[in-house]
């Protein structure tokens, strides 16, 4: 393995590839490709920042502040952190079961989050690649290009996202920095007016979501070989699952399967996740590498997220989404359901499922009235797991007798997918790197692979003009022989 190129023999190189602190704050991605003596790619490494600082940041804080504070982890999916933390803190306050009203309002919030995040991802980030092609003019590969050539599609994408955000606003109390979910439940009902306003648009949202699923399917049909093969790799999987095997993005047990379909564990109580999942530290990355303990660090890495959830559940408990799931699984003898770009298709199926769930929950009068908060016997430890837009999200806290958080462990979706993303980039680099010179085309192909996962950088931080992607080519001697940087405005420099 090419990891040997950066071990004890050349420790100075480890320092050289590390991300400097200022970049860690701003958030960026860096990919290094290591070549062997014959110029074959031996290792591809995606370097992304981690959230260890945040785990320390919450230590010493009173536990009831945590569901609000953790939203500052991520500006794209703050609700996922809000809810995962709330679920963990439910256990701290002894709420073994929150009230039906609280669970339904939280679920509504969560499906609003999934819908808006998936809409943003597909229409803003992925559809330019898919509609215009990976090698198309870089000026077109963005939401502006989509808006110019597909104005209805771009408008639908924005309105879908806006709708999801409105669901979040009425359930969380605010468009951002919401406070709706609290340890033991929620702090408000929906008003009848809020419910009716959302219901009025719900059917249109379902229709647009279904159209988006069909659009991705058509793109697959038109580019079958490319879509099946691009950046694909076999992987073990991890996801939450409902007791009857249904997809459940809010709550359930953990299901782990190997790449050949063998079940490692199923319906596992997530309070015991640590008995089965461990995190490996590697010197060249700030981000840890989780793996299944039973398989060990070398073989035990796995993939989480929409592709895993849609392909590994037994069924989806809403009719339109489940019909699309069946099509997806059966398509081209199952190849799409194993392809990295199948993630886009799975993501749209989940968006449709979320839209259906939102409609069903809005028809349930429990969201208008009922008990908001449950309490019980105080505990010192709590674990909350949720399926966030990008995959399984784990929050784990220990709280002392003074109500202060004394330990926190967060495993975010991007960390679960760390090795999987590296595998995908490696597959792309092997196929598209030609010689020892980096090209804009190669950079974009790597970006396409990264976009399928949409890793979460240190994204709650934002400063003007700072989110580059750096690509470096390193030879067998450890020398950098080429580099390329994509700036935040899309321009490339060498």
């Amino acid at each position, binding site marked *: 393995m090419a990891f040997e190129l950066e071990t004890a023999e050349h420790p100075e190189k480890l320092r050289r590839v590390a991300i400097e602190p200022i970049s860690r704050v701003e958030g960026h991605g860096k990919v290094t490709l290591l070549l062997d003596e014959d110029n074959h790619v031996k290792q591809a490494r995606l370097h992304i920042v981690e959230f260890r600082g945040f785990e320390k940041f919450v230590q010493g804080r009173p536990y009831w502040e945590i569901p609000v504070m953790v939203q500052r982890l991520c500006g794209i999916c703050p609700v996922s952190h809000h809810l995962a933390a709330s679920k963990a803190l439910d256990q701290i306050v002894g709420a073994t079961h929150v009230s039906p009203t609280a669970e339904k309002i939280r679920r509504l919030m969560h499906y609003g989050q999934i819908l808006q995040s998936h809409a943003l991802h597909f229409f803003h*980030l992925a559809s330019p690649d898919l509609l215009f092609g990976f090698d198309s003019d870089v000026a077109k590969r963005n939401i502006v290009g989509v808006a110019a050539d597909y104005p209805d599609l771009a408008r639908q994408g*924005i309105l879908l*996202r806006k709708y999801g955000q409105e669901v979040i606003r009425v359930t969380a109390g605010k468009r951002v920095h919401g406070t709706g979910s609290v340890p033991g439940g929620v702090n408000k009902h929906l008003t009848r007016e809020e419910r009716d306003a959302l219901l009025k648009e719900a059917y249109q949202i379902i229709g647009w979501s279904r159209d988006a699923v069909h659009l991705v399917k058509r793109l697959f049909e038109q580019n079958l070989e490319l879509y099946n093969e691009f950046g694909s790799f076999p992987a073990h999987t991890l996801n939450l699952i409902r007791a009857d095997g249904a997809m459940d993005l809010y709550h359930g047990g953990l299901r782990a399967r190997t790449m050949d379909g063998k079940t490692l564990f199923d319906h596992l109580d997530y309070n015991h996740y640590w008995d089965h999942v461990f995190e490996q530290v590697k010197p060249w990355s700030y981000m840890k590498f989780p793996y299944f303990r039973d398989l060990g660090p070398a073989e035990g890495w796995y993939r989480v997220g929409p592709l895993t959830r849609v392909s590994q559940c037994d069924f989806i408990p809403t009719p339109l989404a489940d019909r699309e799931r069946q099509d997806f699984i059966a398509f081209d003898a199952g190849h799409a359901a194993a392809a990295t770009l199948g993630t886009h298709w799975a993501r749209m199926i989940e968006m449709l499922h979320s839209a259906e769930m939102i409609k069903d929950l809005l028809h349930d009068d429990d969201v208008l009235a009922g008990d908001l908060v449950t309490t019980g016997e105080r505990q010192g430890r709590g674990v909350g797991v949720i399926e966030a837009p990008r995959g399984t999200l784990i929050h784990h806290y220990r709280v002392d007798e003074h109500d202060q958080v004394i330990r926190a462990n967060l495993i975010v979706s991007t960390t679960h997918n760390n090795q999987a993303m590296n595998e995908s980039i490696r597959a792309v680099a092997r196929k598209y790197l030609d010689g020892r010179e980096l090209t804009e085309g190669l950079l974009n192909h790597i970006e396409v692979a990264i976009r399928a996962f949409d890793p979460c950088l240190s994204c709650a931080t934002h*400063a003007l003009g700072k989110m580059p992607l750096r690509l470096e080519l390193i030879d067998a001697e450890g020398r950098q022989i080429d580099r390329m940087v994509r700036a935040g405005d*899309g321009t490339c420099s060498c």
Partner: protein
Amino acid sequence: MSAATLIVGIGNPSRGDDALGPLAIERLEAMAMADVELLTDFQLQVEYALDLQDRRRVVFVDAAESGPEPYAWAEVRPEQDTSYSSHELSPAAVLHTYAQLYGTPPVAHVLAVRGYRYDLGAPPSPAALANLDQAIRRLLAELA
């Protein structure tokens, strides 16, 4: 009916000088200005194009990791943007999205307040807060 002026403060309150945008909004809220709507968020996203509808002008207030001190005030025009991530969109790209969907966007400016440190959990630096004081004075003068 929308207020004629929209001011959007961008940044994370928990990351040192990245809080400058939200802090600007907090201070402006206390002034209760007429016909001005204030929004704050971690970062811009495509749906902000919808917030620009029926506005006469828009101001984006954000921390700037580099550039002039104490701040830069500049008109921003629609411009395309590309990224490998869904986690960032520039003010220019929001305007461009608006332009593609609805036509000519409102006049827009960026108030880029120079920041210096972005450590998690750190308070805004004194130097950045001093920059913010001057930036807000400029903003109020522009709005007058």
